């Protein structure tokens, strides 16, 4: 499978080589003589609980060995945003490479770049980062996402463009419950209502108690994934329709959708656990009828969670919900962007830093280390293909994917998660099946773009209050603490808080996106 990646890369390289689009030359390894260059990386610590990059994990050691660059990990597993904001704002004692907060928007890139904390990387990338350039060629939307309106690149985003091809994220349902109650897989809102009522009333878990929760949610806001049943073309927040940028919460279709959710909620069909803190418990107790929503690896995860209570537990993705006579809606792909990172002004070795990023983020060798780990420990080459060892596939403590993370694979810095290794890791499970099934069938999410100064100012002035308002009203309408009679008033308020400007801003960014990717 890695062969395919390899051949694609080769093909790309050849094709690019002939056009002469790339200027950067392949650098030789190690990047620096061992012991001469040290860089500090500030950001998130390993996503594997109880494992820290600070302890020197095998994959990171292998990267250090290959590049000759020692990384001092200034990483945190809690309160990262607070620490990192303080450090960057103080402007002293800066790390060399840093993740860029706030993590829920892109305005940090503008702010820290315009304040001189981040240095422009364009020339460095053009000169020293051949693999990043290749990645840009392969994914124009990646290049668009990191190009500031002034044309500079101050930061690169964690990139899930590859892996998200095979990680659908949608609503799951207990197939075994459907079978047990003799129900069809629901597709329309009406069918959903009937199925959920049956889950509630017919005791599918067979414990004699009416304790089933028909819809368990990631959080109540996540139920907006049901929106495609009401004429929405996709389950995204933002999309374009007839060349116009559309945002869901003031759409005319939205009111009917809310009324339906409200009916479900008041009839006890949707979990009252608004922030979803209890969701895993409810699943583990064999009480969840459907789950809205999480990526496909949870299909297996939830079955495992529930296995103790019910070994037959079988979560499956549902087909996209749609209204009668409606065209097939499009499933949105998960966003490919995860937290930007950049090089700071205090970095003494910007050239080496960029090469190091290039190696980890984009090189073939780096991708092997990310996805398969260290040869001999986590994989062996069999017939020219990497094959996971028992250390990964049958680890005492971790399931395979987490076992990979525990040795430093799929790290959370300079993210570029390879898809094939992910599928190999879930070989033979339904995660692999749905991964292949949905591949190429999901639509790209609305592009993430960096804002201009005006846009960033506007955004930080308007968005926090507006976002609070929209989310709060969604919850209030669904739970019924706000009557839908006030919908018009709500729309009016949203506009008076600046919704139009936000939509115009997103539209302008979308136009810029089109111009960068050249369509």
């Amino acid at each position, binding site marked *: 499978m890695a062969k395919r990646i390899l051949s694609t890369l080769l093909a790309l390289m050849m094709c690019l080589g002939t056009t002469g689009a790339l200027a950067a030359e392949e650098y030789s390894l190690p990047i620096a003589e061992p012991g001469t260059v040290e860089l500090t990386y500030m950001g998130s610590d390993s996503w594997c609980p109880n494992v820290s990059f600070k302890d020197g994990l095998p994959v990171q050691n292998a990267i250090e060995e290959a590049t000759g660059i020692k990384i001092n990990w200034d990483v945190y597993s809690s309160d990262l945003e607070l620490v990192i904001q303080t450090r960057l704002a103080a*402007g002293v004692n800066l790390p060399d490479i840093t993740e860029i907060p706030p993590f829920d928007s892109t305005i940090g890139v503008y702010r820290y770049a315009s304040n001189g904390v981040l240095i422009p990387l364009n020339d460095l990338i053009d000169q020293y980062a051949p693999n990043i350039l290749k990645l840009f060629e392969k994914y124009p939307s990646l290049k668009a996402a990191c190009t500031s309106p002034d044309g500079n690149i101050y930061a690169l985003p964690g990139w899930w463009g590859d892996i998200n091809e095979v990680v659908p994220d949608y609503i799951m349902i207990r197939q075994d419950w459907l079978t047990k109650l003799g129900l069809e897989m629901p597709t329309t809102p009406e069918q959903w209502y009937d199925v959920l009522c049956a889950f509630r009333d017919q005791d599918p878990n067979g414990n004699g108690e009416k304790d089933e929760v028909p819809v368990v949610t990631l959080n109540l806001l996540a139920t907006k994934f049901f929106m495609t049943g009401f004429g929405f073309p996709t389950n995204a927040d933002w999309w374009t329709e007839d060349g116009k940028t559309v945002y869901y919460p003031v759409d005319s279709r939205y009111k009917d959708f809310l009324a339906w959710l409200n009916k479900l909620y008041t009839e006890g069909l949707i979990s009252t656990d608004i922030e979803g803190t209890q969701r895993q418990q409810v699943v583990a107790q064999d009480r969840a009828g459907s789950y809205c929503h999480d990526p496909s690896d949870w299909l297996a995860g939830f079955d495992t969670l529930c296995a103790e209570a019910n070994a037959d537990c079988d979560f499956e993705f549902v087909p996209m919900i749609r209204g009668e006579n409606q065209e097939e809606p499009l499933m949105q792909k998960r966003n490919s962007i995860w937290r930007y990172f950049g090089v700071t002004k205090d970095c003494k070795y910007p050239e080496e830093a960029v090469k190091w990023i290039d190696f980890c983020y984009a090189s073939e060798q780096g991708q092997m280390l990310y996805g398969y780990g260290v040869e001999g420990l986590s994989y062996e080459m069999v017939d020219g293909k990497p094959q996971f060892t028992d250390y990964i596939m049958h680890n005492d403590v971790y399931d395979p994917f987490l076992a990979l993370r525990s040795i430093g694979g799929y790290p959370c810095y300079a993210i570029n998660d390879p898809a094939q290794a992910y599928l190999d890791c879930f070989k033979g499970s339904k995660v692999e099946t749905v991964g292949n099934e949905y591949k190429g069938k999901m639509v790209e999410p609305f592009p993430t773009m960096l804002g201009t100064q005006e846009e960033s100012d506007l955004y930080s002035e308007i968005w926090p209050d507006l976002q609070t308002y929209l989310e709060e009203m969604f919850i209030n309408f669904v739970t019924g603490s706000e009557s839908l009679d006030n919908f018009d008033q709500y729309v009016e308020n949203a506009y008076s808080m600046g919704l139009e400007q936000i939509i115009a801003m997103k539209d302008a960014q979308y136009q810029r996106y089109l111009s960068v990717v050249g369509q």
Partner: protein
Amino acid sequence: MLANHPARVEKRQNALSRLGYNLSKDKHLLLIILPTVLFYLLFCYWPMYGVVIAFKDFNISLGILGSDWANPLFKHFSSMVNSYYFPRLLRNTLIISVEQLLFNFPLPIIFALLLNEVRSKRLKLVAQTCSYLPHFISMVVVVGIMMDLLSTDGLVNQLVVRMGGAAIPFFNEPDYFRTLYVGSGVWQEFGWNSIIYLAAIAAVDTQQYEASIVDGAGRWKQLWYITLPSIAPTIITLLIINMGWMLNIGYEKIILMYNRATYETADVFSSYVYRKGLLDAQYSFAGAVGLANSAVNIFILLLTNAISKRTCDISIF
């Protein structure tokens, strides 16, 4: 040294000579307190230039002092007041503050007084020891346990259902938020806060009690005429400090407890600033809200202190 020289003292201005006299008289005291003063200068006053950030358009590369003044100067203050949510934030902050003071302040005193009256020494010791314990567990855990117990299938709702009621989603109901917030705070701190009163009670002269027993005073009278007056200075000192802190509601517990369904009663200035100021890195805005909050706090503090000074001659400075 100056003071030792009578001839020069006469020539100096009155104030200066007094200063010299004082320096000499209190030289040991000055030496004793010097390290503490140094601490305050270094870690409290040196960083205090940071308050001007509220009047600046903060730019990192220029630093806090070098950044341009906001134009208009009170831009960040007015942006707070003009916020859509300002009335709600003000209301919630005030109500939670007052409720907190109303319950958090007197309960430790009552507990300490009750504890003092417990007959059994062993019970007293056990109650005292146990009451401190909640103080030691972290907020995250307290909120977590509370959510467990109050979830729709939690212990409390199991009781409610058994008694024929319908399960209440406590954490989704705006009406319950303040009760939960203030109640859990009381639970966590009432014992701990009583320590200081217990120490004060212990310091009361036992002879007074013995004399009162001779006079035939009952326990109620002892409590009312001896214990309470003796610990009154401690109570008033702490009341003044508490008044000054009244509006300081930390964001940490709020953000652990609230959700979008309870913003209506739960969102306060600090949690709002946390969302908007810290996570979005709007330091000037956060600084403005913090400064306004401090100004109100200091005003309340000075007011309470002045009243206390006039009425019972107790002052914290």
